């Protein structure tokens, strides 16, 4: 991947988080502590500020740098969770990945996120989006189809009962609200899938 391509992926990710920060915060206010939008925006703006330096690195190192920056700047549990996703992708991806390489790396990265959050799909978290994205990727779906699968998966967290994170304190009252982390994950998946297709 050319350095300019990686920079544009970072810009697309940071743009979508910034554009939806208030929506993410509102989702988190409903069933959490209400800092998700602001925290994610802070993290991705910090990544954007160093995008050119990160993009100059080989892809695995660039992804690890993105993950580390998120860990250090987000300031909530989302920092280690999204940070682990990118750090694990960086650790697992070859320098020039094909779709099989990307699929395998995402599978390992999802395992790392699940371990970090002591969670699994079905508990109303970002994993409920990541898992269907992995399956769509493995089935050879297009970027647009993968993005649509992510949105559908985020919507599917609405009727779920939260079993992890601050929302789990609400028990049944968490039902009827979309998980903020699932929403931000779907936003990132769409931004990255569309940016990658633009470059093909």
């Amino acid at each position, binding site marked *: 991947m050319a350095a300019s391509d990686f920079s544009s992926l970072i810009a697309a990710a940071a743009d979508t988080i910034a554009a939806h920060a208030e929506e993410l915060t509102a989702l988190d206010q409903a069933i959490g502590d209400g800092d998700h939008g602001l*925290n994610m925006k802070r993290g991705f703006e910090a990544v954007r500020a160093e995008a050119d330096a990160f993009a100059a690195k080989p892809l695995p190192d660039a992804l690890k740098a993105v993950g580390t920056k998120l860990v*250090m700047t987000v*300031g909530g*549990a989302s*920092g*280690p969770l999204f940070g682990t996703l990118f750090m694990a992708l960086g650790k697992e991806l070859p320098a020039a990945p094909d779709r099989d390489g990307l699929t395998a790396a995402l599978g390992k990265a999802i395992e790392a996120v699940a371990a*970090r959050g002591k969670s699994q799909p079905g508990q109303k978290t970002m994993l409920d989006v990541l898992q269907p994205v992995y399956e769509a990727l493995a089935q050879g779906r297009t970027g647009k189809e993968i993005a649509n699968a992510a949105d559908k998966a985020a919507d599917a967290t609405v009727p779920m009962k939260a079993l992890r994170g601050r929302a789990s304190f609400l028990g049944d009252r968490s039902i009827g609200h979309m998980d903020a982390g699932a929403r931000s994950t779907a936003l990132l998946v769409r931004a990255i899938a569309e940016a990658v297709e633009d470059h093909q």
Partner: protein
Amino acid sequence: MSNVGIVIVSHSPLVAEGTADMVRQMVGDEVPLAWCGGNGHGGLGTSVEAIMGAIEKAWSEAGVAILVDLGGAETNSEMAVEMIGEPRSHKIVVCNAPIVEGAVMAATEASGGASLKEVVATAHELSPS
């Protein structure tokens, strides 16, 4: 110092500092102690960087026990331990215990020269299940 160190990590700097005050009242300066709280940007939350700094400050060759409040404090503390890396990460434990009672009990145990394993066990006794 050869006693186990104690680190207090809360979403709120006021809770973290107040807990540290209560620990000091029990054990004085016999236990290496550090606290951190807040997201580093003036809001409630926890910062991996601040947690790593607190672990450095309370570092003891006997090990460090970390007491946390809510989920994000635990996740960020586990991340901080991982980023500090081996071999020291093997001597740092994030305790499953109420933050105030856990910190005071763990520090009291540590002040008597107990091992990290004993200090952590004392904190864990406070947690149901």
